[in-house]
C-alpha cells in the first residue's frame, strides 16, 4: 500500500526543478507560444461571440456592415419572440424524446455487448481463447 501511495505522490508532484530553471532565464519563446495560443482561442471564440451578441440586437442593427461589438439598443425582444410566439416547446420535447430514446437504446445494447466481449480472453496472437 505504501509503495503505491509513494508512486502516486511522485506522479502528481510538480516538476520543481524544471519550473525553477524556467523562471531563472526568462522564457521568451514560451511567452510567444502562450500568446499565440490565447490569440488563437480568441479568434476561435469570436464567431460564437458574434452569434451571441447578435441575439441581443434589434433587427436594424443586425444588418449593419460595421463591426459593432456591443448592441446600441440592448434588447430581449428576439428571445421573447422565440419563447412566446413560436412552438419551441414542442420542438424541444421532440428533440428530447428522440435523444432520450437513442441514449437508452445505445447504452442498453452497447453495455451488454461490451461486457460480454470484455469477458472473452483475447490471446496475444489475436485469437480469442477460452
Amino acid at each position, binding site marked *: 500500500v505504501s509503495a503505491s501511495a509513494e508512486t502516486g505522490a511522485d506522479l502528481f508532484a510538480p*516538476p520543481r*526543478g*524544471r519550473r525553477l*530553471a524556467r523562471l531563472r532565464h526568462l522564457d521568451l*519563446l*514560451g511567452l510567444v*507560444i*502562450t500568446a*499565440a*495560443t*490565447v490569440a*488563437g*482561442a*480568441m479568434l*476561435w*471564440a469570436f*464567431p*460564437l461571440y*458574434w*452569434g451571441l451578441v*447578435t441575439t441581443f440586437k434589434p433587427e436594424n442593427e*443586425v*444588418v*449593419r*456592415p*460595421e*463591426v459593432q461589438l456591443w448592441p446600441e439598443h440592448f434588447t430581449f425582444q428576439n428571445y421573447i419572440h422565440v419563447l412566446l410566439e413560436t412552438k419551441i416547446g414542442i420542438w424541444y420535447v421532440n428533440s428530447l424524446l428522440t435523444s432520450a430514446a437513442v441514449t437508452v*437504446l445505445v447504452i*442498453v*445494447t*452497447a453495455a*451488454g*455487448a461490451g*461486457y*460480454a466481449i470484455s*469477458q472473452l480472453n483475447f490471446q496475444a496472437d489475436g485469437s480469442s481463447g477460452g
Partner: protein
Amino acid sequence: MLKSKRTEILAASMLMAPFVVTYGVLFIYPTIKMAQLSLTNAPLIGPGKWVGFDNYFRLASDRLFSVAIWNTLYFVILSVIPSTLIGLLVALGVNRLKGWLQSVVLAAFFLPYVLPVSVVFRIWQWMCDKDFGIAQHVVQLFNNGERLSIFRTIPLFMPAVAIVTIWWLIGFNVLLFIAGLRNISSEIYEAAELDGAGRWTQFRRITWPLVWPVTVLVFTIQLILQLKIFDQVYLFASGGRIDTTIVMVQYILKQAFQMNKGGLAAAASMVLFVLIAALSVPQFQLLRARGDR
C-alpha cells in the same frame, strides 16, 4: 463444468442479443438489400428489373458523378490534413497552459463542436453575407476593396466550407491529442532536459513519436468523416449552382429523391462505401506500421 459452460453461453447470448439483433436488422440486412438494389433499375419505391452492372457503367460515364467524386476528394484534402495538424498545434499550446487559463482556452476551441450544423451554417453565412457580413472587411483587404459573395464564388466555395468545418470540428481532435500528450510521462522530458535537449529536439524525439498513434487515429476518423461530407456543402450551396459543388452523398440524394432512380443511387452508395474502405483501411495500417519502427 458442462453446466457452468452452458449457463455462460446463455448469459453471453442474452447480453449480445440486443446488439446483434439491432445491428443485423438496421445495418447488415439493409446493406445486403442495397447491394441487390444496385443491380436493378428500381425506382425509389417498388421493385425493379435485374440489369446487371448497368448502373455502374452508367455512373462511370456520368460527368456529374465524376464531378461529385473530385469535389469530395478535394474537400477531404482541404479539411483532413489541416484539421489534424491544427488540432495537434492547438493541443500542444493548450497543454502548456495551467489552471483556469487552460480551461478557458480549451473551452474556446471546443465550444463550436457542440453546435448543430444548422447553427454553424447560420453564423458563418451571416458573417460572410455580401451586404452586411463583417467578414467582408477581411475580404475587401484582398479584393481591391470590393465585396464578394464568398459561397457563390466557385473557386472559393470548397476552401471556405473546409475552413468552417475545421472551425466547427477541431475541438474533438484537440481533446484526443491532449489525452495523448498527457499520457507521455513528464519524467522523459525531465531526463531529456537534463541531457540538454532543447524544445525542438524534445518535440522531434519525444512528443512527435509518442503522440503518433493518436495522430493516426485522428487522421483516420477525419478521413472517414469527411468522405461522407454532406450537410455543410448542401446548406452553403442551396440556392447556388449546386451541380458544380456537388459531393458524393449529395449525388446519391439527388438520384434517389429527385430523379427517382433507386437502383442508380444504390450503385453510387456502393461506390462511396468501397471508396471509404479502400482509403481508410490501408491508410490506417500503413501509418500505424510506420509508427512501430
